[in-house]
């Protein structure tokens, strides 16, 4: 069952007189429970594609359907509600709020879903347990290592049980050991909870740990391989 589909998805940037087709008529279908990577060099359009999939950006043309919702004609507030309910994000730079503790950072998306405080705390602690960081719940981001901070960010993406988790170079700031650890964690989360993941990366070591590798070049799909 497809959880995310795109149809002739196009994003054009205008810079003065030149136009750049960052995403160029792209058709894609992602099934529930998939664990895939989107590979490409910088400037290939992979990050723009991720932003379009996550309703962080609006396409110039084409369609994105997330969990049965056509996103093309939605208002800003409606797109925010898609991001709230159906999408989880993981960023390269973790993007944790420094003034909040780990568990409060994880609670943040639930706050925007208007979940009650006690329920919020319970679900946030549960998500931290899934990423193996229960003992760091009270720590501030500044007291966490890079690997730990990214695991908190993963817990924040998981806490709403979204249809898909989108990750933008999630291991970009990490060393090899932590990269392997994070990828193993994501693989386990995918296997144990059927959580769908799409990971944008330029790192082959990351891509080869996923089960489907989509290569993007000049805003088009160059190859789409399912790995055994």
């Amino acid at each position, binding site marked *: 069952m497809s959880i995310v589909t795109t149809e002739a998805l196009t994003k054009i940037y205008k810079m003065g007189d030149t136009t750049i087709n960052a995403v160029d008529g792209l058709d894609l279908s992602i099934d529930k429970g998939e664990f895939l990577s989107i590979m490409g060099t910088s400037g290939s359009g992979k990050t723009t594609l991720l*932003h379009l999939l*996550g309703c*962080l*950006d609006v396409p110039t043309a084409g369609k994105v359907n997330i969990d049965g919702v056509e996103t093309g004609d939605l208002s*800003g*507030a409606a797109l*925010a*509600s898609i*991001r*709230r*309910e159906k999408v*989880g*994000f993981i*960023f390269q730079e973790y*993007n944790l*709020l420094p003034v909040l503790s780990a568990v409060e950072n994880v609670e*943040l*998306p639930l706050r*925007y*879903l208007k979940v009650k405080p006690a329920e919020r705390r319970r679900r946030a602690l549960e998500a931290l347990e899934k990423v193996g960081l229960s003992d760091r719940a009270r720590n501030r981001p500044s007291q966490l290592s890079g690997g730990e901070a990214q695991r908190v960010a993963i817990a*924040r993406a998981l806490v*709403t049980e979204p249809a898909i988790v989108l990750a933008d170079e999630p291991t970009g700031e990490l060393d090899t050991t932590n990269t392997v650890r994070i990828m193993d964690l994501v693989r386990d989360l995918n296997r144990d909870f059927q959580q769908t993941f799409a990971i944008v990366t330029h790192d082959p070591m990351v891509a080869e740990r996923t089960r489907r590798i989509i290569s993007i070049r000049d805003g088009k799909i160059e190859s789409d391989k399912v790995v055994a």
Partner: protein
Amino acid sequence: MFKDIKMSQGRELKAGDTDKAVVGSVLATQERSNVGGPITLKGKTYEVAGIMDATLGPTDAWAFVPYQDGLNTFLAANPFIKDVQLVQSITVLPKPGADIEALAGTIQKDIPGVKTTSPVQAEKQISQMTTIFSAIILGIAFIALFVGGLSVINTMIMSVSERRREIGLKKAIGATTSTILREYLGEAAMIGLFAGAVGMLAGLLAISALNRATHANNVVIFAVTSTVILGPVIFATILASLAGLFPALRAARLNPVDALKEE
């Protein structure tokens, strides 16, 4: 002018007194003077003839001495003045029913070298002075308000602009524009409220110190009322909210992708 002041102890000065003084209540307390005891004024020792009732006016800190004693003290302090017939002013007390304005005019016309000030003229002079004084105070207040307001606006713009990335993240994980706006406006209002309260506290401390310093002369310079306390705090809260509104609105409307790119 001072005829109405009653004696709380002793007697008033009378013609022929020398080296005697009538002392105001505050001065008497300060100098620990008793009727019949000594008091030293401008280096000269007098016998206290009487102590006046408290009037809550400036005379409470004054002492009255016989004309000749006062003149001697004055001339000793100002050796360049030779004319011992020096008189600075004479207070005229008209009989009840007299036309004071006409009387003032007559005196000025009939006695050469004398300039009279009638009650109407005196009132005019005082009100002129008060108006100028009020204008100066008001001008200073407006300058302070303007400078303070600008710095509040600047601070709010900076603090929200610095956090565009944070706003981008919040939008990415599902906050709507109005949620962001509410969050940051609420924060701006809280900052304003807190800052206003702290400023008010500092102001109250300064006022109470000033009032204490002038209390000895029975003058209360600053009256503290609920309007004086609440007004500025509410004003600070509203000002900070308004100052936060513009940058918050701009940041909240940002495309999350652009906001996240900010360093």
